[in-house]
């Protein structure tokens, strides 16, 4: 096993994919600098820089994929998808269905996401539940280097559109770019195990839609993804001392959701908290509640720790409204546990 940063893992997986499949290429703004190593290795046909025209180049990515290429279209920050989402809403996601299942769109949309470094409400959204609402799109959110590389391969190899979101607190160069700016006197709550870790010698894709149980437990299930999964693991440690045995599930894929891992865990613990950095309402946390309501016979205690409003600029307020250890703990401690009665 070798160790790698989250960002290097993605790059490494892309290097492997681009070496092995000449159809894989990258397109997006500023890629000649943001992906300079890939540019250096593969040349500018494979790493294409664009004007600030997201709707044109994302739309072009859709048909480039339909022509048999495997484009990885970069939308710098997922917040910017607003100017281009027609390409996903009405095209990428629907061509397979419209064509009667005859034409695939093997498109990857790669974007950074997430907050915790003081950039405000137009630059720190995650939007994964929002994107997953559209039938025909898959959404994947890695939480550590090994997953980051493997899931990039899964995304590239998928025959349908996959949105790949990398959290800015995990990808060091994004954080340097948007948050630190070369300064040594600003510090962010970067989870070590997410930003760096062991990775396989050779990248292999992970199955689409497969979540992973990162910690076994019997009293409470925390379901999460991205940076928040590390907050959950921290909470699980603390709760362990309070005699609450916590299971932690890293969804990895927002869509398709790993229904069985969720139902199995919830059937066991009967207590579920969804920790979701995306907005609370009409999103991932609700979907999980629906799965539980439909799939489990007895009552589950259920709660959610999500982002409930536009993200404030003020760092203190921001840290409060993003899912954090305190909020999760508070909710978890409010649940009733039989053995304590």
């Amino acid at each position, binding site marked *: 096993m070798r160790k790698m940063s989250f960002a290097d893992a993605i790059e490494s997986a892309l290097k492997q994919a681009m070496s092995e499949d000449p159809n894989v290429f990258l397109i997006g703004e500023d890629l000649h600098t943001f992906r300079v190593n890939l540019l250096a290795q593969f040349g500018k*046909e494979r790493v294409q820089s664009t004007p600030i025209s997201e709707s044109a*180049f994302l739309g*072009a990515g*859709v048909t480039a994929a*339909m*022509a048999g*290429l495997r484009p990885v279209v970069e939308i710098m920050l997922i917040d910017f998808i607003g100017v281009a989402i027609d*390409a996903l809403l009405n095209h990428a996601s629907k061509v397979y269905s419209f*064509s*009667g299942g005859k034409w695939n769109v093997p498109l990857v949309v790669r974007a950074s996401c997430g907050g915790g470094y003081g950039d405000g409400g137009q630059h720190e959204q995650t939007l994964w539940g929002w994107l997953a609402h559209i039938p025909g799109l898959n959404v994947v959110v890695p939480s550590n280097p090994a997953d980051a590389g493997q899931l990039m391969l899964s995304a590239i190899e998928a025959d349908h559109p996959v949105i790949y979101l990398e959290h800015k607190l995990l990808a060091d160069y994004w954080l340097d770019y948007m948050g630190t700016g070369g300064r040594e006197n600003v510090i962010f709550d970067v989870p070590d195990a997410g930003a760096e870790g062991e990775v396989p010698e050779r990248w292999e894709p992970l199955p689409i839609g497969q979540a992973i149980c990162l910690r076994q437990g019997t009293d409470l299930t925390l379901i999460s993804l991205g940076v928040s999964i590390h907050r959950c693991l921290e909470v699980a440690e603390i709760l362990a001392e309070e005699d609450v045995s916590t299971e932690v599930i890293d969804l990895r894929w927002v869509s398709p959701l790993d229904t069985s891992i969720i139902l199995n865990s919830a059937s066991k613990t009967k207590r579920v908290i969804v920790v979701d950095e995306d907005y609370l309402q009409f999103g991932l946390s609700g979907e999980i509640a629906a799965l539980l309501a439909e799939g489990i016979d007895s009552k589950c205690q259920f709660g959610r720790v999500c982002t409930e409003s536009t993200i404030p600029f003020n760092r203190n307020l921001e840290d409060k409204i993003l899912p954090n250890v305190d909020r999760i703990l508070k909710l978890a401690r409010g649940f009733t546990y039989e053995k304590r009665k």
Partner: protein
Amino acid sequence: MILMRENTILELYETMLRSRCLEEAITRLWEEGYIFGEMHLGIGEEAIIAGVLSHIIPGDAIATDHRSTPPFLMRGVDPEVLLLELLGHQKGLCLGMGGHMHLFNQELLLTSSGIVGSSGPSAVGFALAAKYRKTNNIAVAFFGEGAMNQGMLLESLNLAASMNLPVLFVCKDNNWAITTQSNEVTGGVLLDRVRGFGIEAREIDGSDVKAVWQATKTAIPRMRGGKKSPYFIQAHCTHKEGHFLGDPLLRFHRAPKKEFGAVTGPLTKSVLHYKGGRIDKRIGSVAKVLSLIAKSRMQLSDSKDPIKRLEKDQKELGKQFSQIQLAIQSEVDALVTGVMNTLKQEVAQ
């Protein structure tokens, strides 16, 4: 000026006519209630589509807008599966899942979309793929002049220009976008706008198939070789059927009594309502709408019909034309009868 061979003219005529006859049949089927939803025809655009497509080679891609039937047909899609698709049949081109605004054909790299302006980015993506693979293929985007105000199409002009992509942008300009006269909502001159993106652009009479054929005969091969770069054609045309089948503006002309009857009541009430804007402005507004309805009548005229026009221009081919007419009409009739019989049998079962 390249001389057209007689054969080419006859081929173009046949192609255009087949499209016309099929869309006339579609009109009847729609009127009889066999086709659901909106139905936008390409009647009036046949010369543009036929002229452009005659220079297309295997591997070229075509991104169309909501008037997709003619380009799909003329590019070689089997008329039977096309018709079945419009009828929503599971043996249709897209298993009945797409319908006329969402036709797709992978083998021929043909797409369509009901989202105005999206054919621009779509064609750019196909051209990008062609350049990436170092083929000499091009991509064509068909769209209306109304789409020229949609951001993604404007962006795609710049993207094609700045990336040197072989995209032929074909603006089928009928000066109508549903009930809007496009010149009233469009700043400047379209050709200047396009040239401002660094793209060579040319205006032609889209009802003249020979003009279209000739313009693209030189432009398209140039795009294939060397420094690939986009090209833009503004081709004027009219839609006899208006925006879509059942176009309310045209209904005023076709069934004036019925339509005006339904509208005048509320309209007069609104003009005369004691609350509201200044009365002269109100009357002005209504006058404007009435003149719009009046103008819409012009679309009904045959003077810009590309097929009639070719027949007139090439009177000397009259005999051959009549033969083709007979053949195509019966070909399409047979097709439609066959398809409808199968359908009725299926329903009966």
